[in-house]
């Protein structure tokens, strides 16, 4: 058993010994064990703030495209965020392809932003990459901005027919979510 020390100095002030005492080892082991245990106990407290199962269950949706005519766009909701689904006209596709990619702030071709074989379907989040407002331009008669795509009324960011940012403060193009065509008229988003 550990014997009585001559003096008992405050913690951390113990005079240096030649060897490590058993008590030092036990002390470090016990405190480390408690420290690791405490840190692990924090994990569920942090993890509970992640999206719950019911939120994740809504993270993919199916959209029926059959009623969207060329030149029309719809707004729907994906992960509680607005989503644009736009059926581009041939003129709009041509206009998007005519742009010099190197002149763009966020260089991407229309082909990169659409699915192969479905290049007329432009599916993007309706969340301005500046500060999160919904750009105008999906509904009939809304201001499509100087580049014929979308225009964000909050701070004036303008997007072109491929929903790429062309002017204003937005740092990037409207985000294209992951999606897959399950048939010619249905698409699964997410």
């Amino acid at each position, binding site marked *: 058993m550990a014997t*009585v020390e001559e003096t*008992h100095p*405050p913690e951390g002030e113990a005079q240096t010994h030649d060897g490590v005492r058993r008590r030092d080892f036990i002390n470090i082991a016990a405190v480390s064990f408690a420290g690791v245990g405490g840190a692990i106990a924090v994990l*569920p*407290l942090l993890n*509970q703030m*992640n999206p*719950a*199962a*019911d939120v994740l269950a809504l993270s993919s949706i199916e959209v029926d495209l059959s009623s969207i005519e060329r030149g029309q766009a719809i707004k729907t909701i994906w992960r509680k965020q607005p989503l644009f689904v736009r059926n581009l006209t041939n003129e709009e596709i041509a206009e998007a392809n005519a742009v010099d990619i190197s002149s763009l702030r966020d260089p991407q071709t229309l082909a990169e932003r659409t699915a192969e074989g479905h290049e007329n379907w432009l599916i993007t989040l309706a969340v301005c990459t500046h500060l999160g407002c919904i750009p105008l331009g999906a509904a009939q008669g809304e201001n499509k901005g100087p580049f014929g795509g979308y225009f964000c009324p909050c701070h004036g960011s303008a997007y072109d027919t491929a929903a790429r940012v062309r002017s204003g403060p937005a740092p990037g193009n409207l985000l294209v979510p992951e999606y897959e065509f399950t048939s010619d008229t249905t698409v699964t988003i997410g």
Partner: protein
Amino acid sequence: MSFPWAEQYTPKHPFMKYMDERLPLPRLVYNSVGAGYPTPRNLNFFWNFGSLAGLALVIQIITGIVLAMHYAANTDIAFASVEYIMRDVNSGWLLRYLHANGASFFFLVLYIHMFRGLYYSSYKPPREVVWLLGLVIFLLAMATAFMGYVLPWGQMSFWGAQVITGLFSAIPLIGEALHTWLLGGFSPDNATLNRFFSLHYLLPFVIAGVIILHIWALHLPGSSNPTGIDVKGPQDTVPFHPYYTAKDGFGVGVFLILLAIMVFFLPNYLGHADNYIEANRLSTPANIVPEWYFWPFYAILRAFTVDFILPAKLWGVIAMFGSIILLFFLPWLDKSPVRSGNYRPQFKIWFWVLVVDVVVLGYCGGSHAEQPYLMISQLATMYYFAHFLIILPIISRTERPRPLPNSITEAVLGKDDSVTGGAAQPAPAE
């Protein structure tokens, strides 16, 4: 605020010196739970339960704040939101079971802490205010636990709220109006649930505040000890850190293991299956009982079945509240100058009779309201009051205590076998 031989806080690092002159928080910690708080060298494991109660409160507050992020205090969705926590929220089941079982563990350590105080007469001068503040904490904890139990809006929640708030309707003249005011309606409803949620969130912080007063009041005379005799000199004490931080740390380990066993293997053992049925105001569960920690008081409430001058209902309420209010007068009911039950042969016997009595009350309180439990409850209730109002005052005058040791050190080194745990600490050689 401490003994003159307490270790002095002497910061070495320039930053700590800087802080000490501006916000001496490290000094406060050092003097409260550090090496600057000299503590009797002979504390046994019953002195662990204060820090454990503090730990239990911290667990309740942390898990509670997290649960409140997902819970909805609305009668339409409260029950569903609790199930949502159990099924959908990440780790939600763990947090809720920790919170529910944590409440039981809080009361368990609170009761052991209180019986420690009763056995070693920790309520006697100069620590009366420590005892009184402790009782305030106990009452606040009971109110908090009751309101928390209402929140899941299950059958037991609803009918518990109905019954417990019904207690107030027994008060003459203002009872009915008070009852309606408490509920915000004529029976528990959305208004009740919302105010209970608000207060259930608030009261733990009030408890934390009273705990600060409790510890402040304790640290003036310093901790009591198993011999009950006062500290006479430096040889009677050891610094709180590392001696009692290590010992409390061991207690924390045991506490957490037991809590983990309940949470992971028996999470609903202490609960009622009825509370997994959503509240139904048209059907009372067959056996409506509160959580186990209220059983002794529930037995006292039900022990009064006959009108005698006052209605039986009012007697039950008076007795139930009286059984706790009585404890506030304990420092003045037990006049014996000897603190520790170890040196009071008669007191010791009656103390254990009281422990058994409270356990019996608890058993009856958890059983159906029928014979023989009613009769046993009545006898046990009689003993409970007689213990404090008759037996304790009498034996404190008549019994002849055993001779006290001359000092804590003599008690420790003279007969090592009779003391447990902390007394086995090595003696600091002087």
